[in-house]
């Protein structure tokens, strides 16, 4: 009996790994292409084993006369700043909504969620008109703040979920002990909603890191991020540059992959919106 159960368990493991592999396969194929020559990418039957070439990666760095580094720096700076601002601002609001429950809390939560419902192509237009009249086109901060706004609702929802799960008794105990409001917010309560913070950071990071439309329309060369570089570099005079797409995808997906690997527990916990404490 035990033997049979063990076999069943092994089969289940195998099956689940197969599912993961299947989902990862296209990504793997793209990653593989980063180390292939152009001809190898297009070869049919597909090549799985080959001598890896670093040509694509080297070309990626050299191609835009070194602008690659600036794109990368822009991507890192803009997404890190935007997400940090968003989570910070959202935390303040979530704390207030969760703790003091001002009038119209539910309405505000829904209102903020509605940010997410606006089709990108819809707001980019008036936003563009607005930026134009304010002279914000191409401004770093204007882009960062926009992304921060866009990351707000999700952060707020996650954080409020978690904050609702943290008993007010903690706040009160600390307050009587003499803790200031900010001590309560950041030293007593914040550490307890860490999974929510991590989940909000990662999740919004994924969005901002990949966002193309707004940066392309509202930004300029100065604030161009990797996805914009990607879109701009899809075609070369040699045709579609599969190597470039693959290399760029590899290079800028890797950090997110690593992040997901290391904070997976927090991410999963975070996605429960605070309905669970403990293991997922």
């Amino acid at each position, binding site marked *: 009996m035990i033997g049979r159960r063990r076999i069943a368990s092994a089969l289940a493991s195998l099956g689940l790994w197969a599912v993961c592999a299947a989902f990862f396969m296209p990504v793997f194929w793209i990653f593989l292409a980063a180390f292939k020559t152009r001809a190898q990418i297009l070869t049919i039957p597909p090549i799985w084993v080959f001598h890896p070439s670093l040509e694509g990666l080297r070309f990626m760095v050299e191609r835009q006369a070194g602008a690659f580094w600036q794109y990368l720096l822009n991507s890192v700076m803009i997404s890190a700043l935007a997400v940090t601002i968003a989570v910070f601002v959202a935390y303040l609001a979530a704390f207030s909504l969760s703790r003091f429950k001002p009038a119209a809390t539910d309405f505000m939560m829904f209102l903020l969620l509605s940010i997410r419902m606006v089709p990108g192509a819809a707001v980019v237009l008036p936003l563009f008109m607005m930026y134009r009249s304010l002279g914000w086109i191409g401004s770093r901060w204007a882009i960062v703040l926009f992304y921060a706004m866009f990351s707000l609702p999700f952060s707020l929802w996650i954080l409020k979920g978690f904050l609702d799960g943290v008993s007010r008794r903690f706040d009160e105990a600390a307050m*009587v002990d*003499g803790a200031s409001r900010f001590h309560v917010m950041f030293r007593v309560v914040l550490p307890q909603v860490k999974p929510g913070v991590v989940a909000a950071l990662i999740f919004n990071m994924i969005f901002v890191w990949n966002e193309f439309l707004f940066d392309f329309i509202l930004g300029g060369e100065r604030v161009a991020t990797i996805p914009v570089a990607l879109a701009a570099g899809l075609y070369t005079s040699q045709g579609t540059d599969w190597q470039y797409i693959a290399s760029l995808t590899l290079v800028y997906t890797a950090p997110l992959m690593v992040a997901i690997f290391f904070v997976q527990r927090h991410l999963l916990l975070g996605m429960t919106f605070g309905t669970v404490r403990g293991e997922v």
Partner: protein
Amino acid sequence: MLELKGLTRRFGARAALEAVNLAIAEPRFNVVFGGPGSGKSLLLRLIAGLERPDEGAVWLHGSDVTSTAPQARRLAYVPQSFALYPHLKVFENIAHPLRLAGSPAAEIKQAVARVASTLQISSVLGHYPDQISGGQRQRVAIARGLVRQADIYLLDDPLAGLDYKIREALLDELRDLQERLKALFVYATSNPLETLALADYVHVLVDGRIVDAGPPEQLSGAPKALWTRLNLGYPLTNSLASRLTSADGRLLCENDLFAVCMEEACTAAVDADRVFATFRPEDVRAVPPNEIGERLIDFQAEVGFVEDIGGERILHLATPAGEVLAIHGLDIQIAPPKTRETFRLRPSDVLVYNSVGCFTGRGASAPRRAALDA
């Protein structure tokens, strides 16, 4: 040092606390005794500043702090739920109030060590709260509340749910601590034994009102409120629905079990047909059938279930007026269950309360049998 003036807090139409007045001038162990939902937690939270009153004021050390933030009230507080910070180790949890006060590290270490050893949690200082047992957590919470030097300590039912032995030990510790600190302890509990064991002074809270106040001896003797009479003590006080009648110019309290003549000073009841004759189980004595006492109340009852509570036994007596509890030492022989026996009460042990729960009077004597029969 603590004064509450007409403190009222409403939730919707319901008043959770109504016009609470109390004044405590000297450091003492002050227990707020009340049932669940009586508002005692709320009272403490109001004192701590965690809630704002709708009416009335809180005065600390002679100044009105009603709208002062909790941080500024300089109180120590052990909340009902432990509220231990899960991200901090036990040591840091206990040290938290001291850190906030900016105490030097060495002092903190010393203070934490002291309170931890008092509460016997020195061994878990390096653990996180979720790694220790419930009882330990509770003691950590108490330690955190007590570690700080304050004039006023608010303890919200800190021993609830603890097992008997720890509780006994902690009761002593708390008393000692209060004596050592010479601070005012305001201790909320629904447990009569804790109340009696700890209190220098008791406030009894029923439905948001203080119905009784006084030293515990006084309250266990002749409380003003029926609720106090019924609940302060273990096992609970017997209460029989009775009526007051007039006989020979004296008030007589009658029920299905007995009748008793009331004291001279006895006030008339609001509703003479609905009064409560109360007597403590320990005042009910079993008497040998041959020994007939004049001026005492005797009644027949069938002994039902007998509960052993260690050192004493609680007898559940079936009487015409319903179940009556009696408590006997182990040394006293009692008849086996299901037998009828005679029990006896001293009239002065019977306290009578009126329909709204106010003390009406005390029994003075048993009426003559003849009078009764007539």
